[in-house]
């Protein structure tokens, strides 16, 4: 048989499939896109969940910039059930393909957030690239926030969390897959950013929660969150303030790098040694102390010392919580070959660990003034 005949045959078969197919799909204008969703514990009964969906309504005319959004809240015993029930309240098919953020209400996360995570991972249409956050006081309230700069529903939360827009040093972004792997991993615990409701058109993201394998445990302050970010990310864009001879100064970080080593050779004297290297430039010098090479060196030393203390305090706080948000345990496992006993060693060792922080901050540039 000639190949052309084969092509004709294929086309005929495909065209015949068209009628079977045509009634199956729903065109894009018959779908409602959920951009973000939130999961809360119901206020009325503690056994129920309250699921909030933030749905974008497409605009016919792209020139008009006012966004239309629908917020749907449904209470049910499970997330799946809530969504089924929400479906009967709208005219079009709810589509999660563009869902970009899942927020857990604080009360829900305090109980157990594994259910929500499991649901999100099991659904085939929910991306692993969803941003996860803890909403305070509740997911519903945070999702109703409409900043005036927003053109696509919920875009402002996404821009803030993804660091595509603002690059705040107080934000930690955690994708769904990252949350899940930390929930599963031995020796690495999850953290989640906190999104707080401020007013109807403003929210605030500057704290993080440390979690164990089930729920949220410890809240870090904004200051601690920034230091946490400094320890976990490279080239954090931020500034730090310090005091030098009673003068309050601020430096802007150009490059930052931190790494650590777990010293466990000597028994009972094991420690985690942190090295933080920062090159920075002076940004604020409130009492106009004149700058030269030696003063720059001196203030660098002062800044380093202050950094040492702050970081050590943070690490101590983390240690006290018995959590491992940075993954020291995993590092310990990764560097030891006795796979069957290493985890036990680590859990015994961790509470007794000592922290040595060595920050070397180099303020090498005094800004546009001397």
């Amino acid at each position, binding site marked *: 048989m*000639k*190949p*052309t*005949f084969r*092509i004709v045959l*294929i*086309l005929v078969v*495909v*065209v015949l*499939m*068209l009628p079977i*197919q*045509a009634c199956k*799909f*729903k*065109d*894009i*204008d018959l*779908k409602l*896109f959920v*951009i973000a969703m939130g999961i809360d514990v119901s206020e009325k009964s503690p056994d129920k969940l309250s699921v909030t969906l933030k749905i*974008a309504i*497409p*605009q*016919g*005319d*792209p020139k008009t910039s006012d966004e239309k959004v629908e917020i749907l809240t449904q209470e049910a015993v499970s997330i799946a059930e809530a969504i089924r029930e929400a479906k009967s309240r709208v005219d079009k098919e709810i*589509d999660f*393909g*563009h869902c*970009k953020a899942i927020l857990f209400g604080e009360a829900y996360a305090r109980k157990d957030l594994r259910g929500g995570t499991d649901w999100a991972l099991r659904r085939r*249409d929910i991306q692993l690239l969803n941003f996860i956050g803890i909403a305070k006081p509740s997911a519903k309230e945070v999702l109703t926030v409409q900043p005036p700069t927003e053109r*696509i529903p919920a875009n402002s939360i996404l821009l803030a969390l993804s660091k595509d827009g603002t690059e705040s040093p107080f934000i930690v972004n955690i994708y769904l897959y990252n949350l899940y792997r930390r929930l599963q991993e031995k020796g690495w615990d999850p953290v989640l950013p906190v999104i707080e409701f401020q007013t109807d058109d403003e929210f605030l993201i500057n704290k993080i929660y440390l979690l164990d394998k089930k729920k949220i445990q410890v809240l870090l302050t904004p200051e601690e969150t920034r230091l946490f970010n400094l320890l976990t990310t490279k080239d954090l864009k931020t500034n730090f303030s310090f005091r030098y001879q009673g003068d309050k100064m601020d430096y802007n970080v150009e490059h930052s790098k931190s790494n650590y080593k777990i010293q466990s050779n000597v028994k009972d004297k094991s420690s985690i040694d942190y090295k933080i290297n920062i090159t920075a430039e002076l940004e604020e010098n409130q009492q106009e102390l004149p700058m030269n090479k030696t003063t720059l060196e001196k203030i660098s030393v002062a800044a380093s010392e202050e950094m040492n203390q702050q970081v050590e305090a943070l690490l101590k706080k983390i240690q006290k919580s018995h959590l491992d948000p940075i993954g020291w345990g995993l590092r310990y496992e990764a560097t030891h070959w006795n796979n069957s006993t290493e985890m036990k060693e680590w859990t015994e060792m961790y509470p007794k660990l000592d922290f040595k922080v060595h920050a070397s901050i180099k303020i090498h540039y005094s800004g546009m003034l001397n």
Partner: protein
Amino acid sequence: MRIRQSGDSLLQQLSQQLSGNADLAQKELGRGADGVHMLYLKSMSDSSIVSRYVITPFYEMKDILAYESYIENYPGTTVGKDEKTLLENVLKGFICLEFENGHIYLFEANKNESSPVSDGQTEVIVQGPSDAFTENLQVNINLIRHRYQSEHLKAELTVVGAKSRTRVAIMYDDVRVDKAILEELRVRLEGIKVDLIQGAGELDKHLSDTKHRLFPTVVVTERPDRAVFNLSEGKILLVVDTTGYVVILPSIFNDYLTAMDDKLQLPISGWFLKTIRYFGLIISTILPAIYVAFTSFNPEVWKVQIALLVAGSRASVPYPSYLEVFIMLVLMEFLTEASLRLPKSIGPTATTVGGLILGTAATEAGLVSNIMIIIVSAVAISNFVIPLNMMMYSIRVMKYFFIIFAAVFGLLGIVLGLVGVVMYLCSLRSFGKPYFKIFALDQWANRVQGGKENGQK
């Protein structure tokens, strides 16, 4: 040379066969032993040649023998051997001269009505030669020989078509050509059993292995520079008389996306142009299909901004996406066809009315989405990027296959279609040579050999 037998001279047989033709001319020059019988077709022979070089010398020369030797040695004269050659040549415009001693000569006096060498119409080029092949075989061969002055260039003449008796010259570079392909071509030319050959493209249909293909497997060009360039790559040209086009074979897919501009530009701009063309090819084949798949099956693939935009602009459209695409594309095809066939003075009006007004009105009325208009015009424009006409038509047809696949399978269907098309292209052969290969190394080898011949490293 044949001695005339009394009663049934060849000339008489010929005149019987041609009787009933109004343009048949039979003349007797002189009388008796000095006489000459003349037979020709007035429409095919040039009357000034007849009077100046045949009739006038007869009366100026007193001696019949001198006249015979003049005719015999005149360039282009052949000796008439049998009835068949006589008939063929008279039909071509030769004058048949029969002397009383029985010698028959064919005097070349054919009149060629052909357009003069003019600028190319179908393959326009910016810088570079603008002359195109004409309907005259001799002129065409002349155009080629001018550009390829090599002793290796050979031109063989054959005739195709039982009724049209179209002369076809096979031209090739003796050294670089693949002898197997040449042999194959000769066999296939012999095997053509048709009445008429009116266009070079028609020859392509009869030459290739499978008649119903989606893609052309020989290049048909009107540009002598393209023909000569391919000649230097070891390809074979078929110069078809009366068509104004030349067939190049074997060809590969890449040839259809090569414009002669690429060779004239600086290498980087040349590559850029070629990349652009491949890009245009891809866009014009799959863009409508992508729209269908995206709106009907997989809205989650693209960014949310695009999804909302498309959803918003489709809100008022009353039918499924594939119908929307079909309607708009078919309208666009009408528009292209109409502006092609219309007289040049009306063409632009049709385009404006059809394209601009119809498009705007359709979106305003909410019958098609804004995005759809953008896609249709993008498809139309990118389709014209393809330099060779035959491929352009193939691509125009192809996109509908993709739309059907996308309407049934979604994005999956587009990839299925792409793999299918690649596989199909790979299964094609142009005179036994693979048609579609990503690295056209064979062609490269030829070029390297050419470099060696010219003393390059």
